[in-house]
């Protein structure tokens, strides 16, 4: 639902970086969206394309990679994926307990980010 505001932020960052580097055309951008975010890649790509129109980035390819979640348990030291999570419909959610020790002192170390990794420009 907030894909639009995030997309606006992405477009601002892309045009800013292109401008600073005297890029005449942005050819592609690479994004990494964590699977624990509530961002839908398809919608982000749509808005970024729309917002690029009329700028040096118009028509640029938007490549999106989904980042797998990784969790860390403070109690037992587990570091890894969250494969143990119950049902399909809950897969984008943080598990509540550690898959190894069932403790609750877990936190996400990866999967909650939306990173603008790099852009390719022509000068």
């Amino acid at each position, binding site marked *: 639902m*907030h894909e639009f505001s*995030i997309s606006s932020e992405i477009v601002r960052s892309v045009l800013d970086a292109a401008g600073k580097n005297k890029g005449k055309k942005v*050819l592609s951008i690479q994004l990494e969206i964590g699977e624990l*975010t*509530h961002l839908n890649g398809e919608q982000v790509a749509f808005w970024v394309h729309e917002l690029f129109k009329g700028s040096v980035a118009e028509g640029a390819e938007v490549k999106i990679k989904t980042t797998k979640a990784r969790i860390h348990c403070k109690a037992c030291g587990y570091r890894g994926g969250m494969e143990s999570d119950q049902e399909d419909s809950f897969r984008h959610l943080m598990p509540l307990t550690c898959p190894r020790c069932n403790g609750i002192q877990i936190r996400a170390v990866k999967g909650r980010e939306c990173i603008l*990794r*790099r852009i390719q420009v022509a000068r």
Partner: protein
Amino acid sequence: MKIIKTKGPEIFDIELGKDLLAKNKKLAKENRKRFNRSDILAIDIMGSIGSGKTSLIKAIIKRLGMGKKVAVIAGDLTTTIDAERIEAEGALVIQVNTGKECHLDANLIRRAADSMNLDGVKVLFIENVGNLICPGEFPLGAHKRLVVTSVTEGPYTLLKHPYIFREADVIVLNKIDLAKPMRVSIPQLEKDAQKINSQIPFIKTNALSGIGISKIINALGLKT
């Protein structure tokens, strides 16, 4: 010797590695530190449109009876209706109008806190924009996050929006007096809540009559 150079465009990568959600998280941490320094307990109240967020805050404030030691940041798109309703309870209130944005963010909370005189304030309620999707992803720096849902939203709200309930510290089911006419099963909603987040309190309330309000006060660690 004559050298002929090709004149194609020069293509290069610009490495950015910029996390667009990180800025909000950083500001949220700063807000939290600020609340801690001033010994303020901040509570983010989230829930859908018409779930009873304002009524619940009003009822809690009334029960606390702490006057201007309670402050409220009321988030809404354009109106001041909520702020005026809360002000009637004697708390310090500021309205934040997000305009088009579907959630409050940490920067808006920082600006609101800057513009308030929080001296002597012990509890700060932040009423988020009515929405069960976006606010979950934008921490504000509050110590606790409470999500209100009501039986008038029908039987599936919890299952449809597990994300925000998973992020919560307290789940409130409001308008329990209307369960029968709405043909909604409270035990079933409680089961759904258990499935999503079994480790936090699930409190049944009727904000207008005051049922369940003291349970919320206990769950949030507010002293009466």
